[in-house]
Structure formats: structure tokens, C-alpha cells
């Protein structure tokens, strides 16, 4: 079970390889990358920080919940911290199962839950020079110009 927080670039091949078992027929993978825009504004760079011990605990917890809901063979969840350039991978989740339906559903569940409960925050470095904590849900934006 590869569940980690990474300070270095994420290696997708090794993440997928970690969930392949001889019984697996379907593997689904979600890959999140840094987008060059947020709320209509141009973004140059993202920076992630985490409450690391709790983030790892919650990552394990959501994986356990997924394994209770679906008959999974293996799961990998890796989230990157620190500065992540546009187009680089910030998160990767891989799930293997005997059949693809379960792999798709569990992967979707895991990324939704990760975004809901895992204590990780991203700071957006906008092209206009301002730096703000991401407001995922169109909430009031708190500016912290640096």
C-alpha cells in the first residue's frame, strides 16, 4: 500500500506498478496536475503545504473506507508538497480491482474524499504577482500579497 507525501516529482510508472497484481483486470488512475488558471486568473505556480501526520492518517483512513466499499486489490495515493510548476503532477491515485467498474468508482471516491478531508492546502502564485491560498468553492478570497 503506497500512501505517501512526496517532496520530489511523482513517478507514475512506479505508482501504477505498485497496484498491479496477477489477479487485477482493471486499474484506474487519477492524476492531478497544476492548472495555469484559477477563477479566471492566470497562475504561474502552486505551492502545497500539509499538516503532514494528520494528512497521512486521513489518507490511510479514506483508503480503508474505499477497501470496505469495493473489492479492491491494491491502492496507491501520493500527494506532492512544495512548489509544483504548471503541468506537473500534484497528486496521483491508483486503484486495482478484478473488474474496471469498481476501480473507477473507488478512484473517484478517493480523489473526492482527499479533496474534502485531507489537510493539505495550496497557495496560488498568480501571474499578476499576488499569492493567495486557494479558494476551491468560490469562497471569499483572502489575499496575502508577498
Amino acid at each position, binding site marked *: 500500500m503506497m500512501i505517501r507525501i512526496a517532496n520530489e516529482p511523482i513517478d507514475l510508472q512506479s505508482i501504477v506498478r505498485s497496484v498491479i497484481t496477477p489477479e487485477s483486470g482493471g486499474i484506474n488512475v487519477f492524476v492531478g496536475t497544476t492548472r495555469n488558471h484559477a477563477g479566471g486568473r492566470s497562475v504561474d505556480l502552486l505551492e502545497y503545504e500539509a499538516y503532514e501526520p494528520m494528512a497521512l492518517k486521513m489518507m490511510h483512513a479514506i483508503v480503508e473506507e474505499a477497501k470496505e466499499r469495493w473489492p479492491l486489490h491494491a491502492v496507491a495515493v501520493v500527494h506532492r508538497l512544495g512548489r509544483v510548476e504548471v503541468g506537473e503532477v500534484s497528486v496521483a491515485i491508483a486503484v486495482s480491482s478484478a473488474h474496471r467498474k469498481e476501480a473507477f468508482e473507488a478512484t473517484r471516491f478517493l480523489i473526492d474524499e482527499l*479533496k474534502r478531508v485531507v489537510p493539505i492546502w495550496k497557495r496560488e502564485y498568480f501571474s499578476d504577482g499576488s499569492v493567495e491560498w486557494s479558494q476551491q468553492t468560490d469562497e471569499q478570497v483572502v489575499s496575502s500579497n508577498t
Partner: protein
Amino acid sequence: MKVTLLLFSVAKDLAGFDTKELEVPDHATTDDVLEMLSKLNSGFLAWKGRLRFAVNQEYVPPNFELHPGDEVAIIPPVSGG
């Protein structure tokens, strides 16, 4: 009693620090901690409804009672992924 306070993201920016040993009254709750922080920076009031608390690395219900030595974290809306 003493608890350890951890702040992240916007909460860290509002407080101006990311960790502090905090002296609180016996039976103090997470609401009391937020009230102390609001006196430090009234900006916390606007965030009140959207800040979650974790005690010893588990999310806790509102107004959760603290115990000596607890690790108390303020969790602003998360944005991983």
C-alpha cells in the same frame, strides 16, 4: 492547562504564527481557542463558520472539550489535489 496550537493556511496568516504552546482554562473548548484568536486578530470572526478543528490529528465536533497536552489544529478549507 497547556495545549499545543497548530495553524495552517489562512489561519496561520491571520495569527502570524504557525505553532504555539497555549495556556487555556480547564475544560476549555475549541470555541474558546477561537475566541482567544479572534481577540488577537478580528479577521478570525469572518472565518469562524469555515474553520474545522482537529484534536490529536482527528477532526472533532464543534465546541469540543480539550485536555492537557492536546495537539489542537485549526483546519481552514482544505485544497489538496
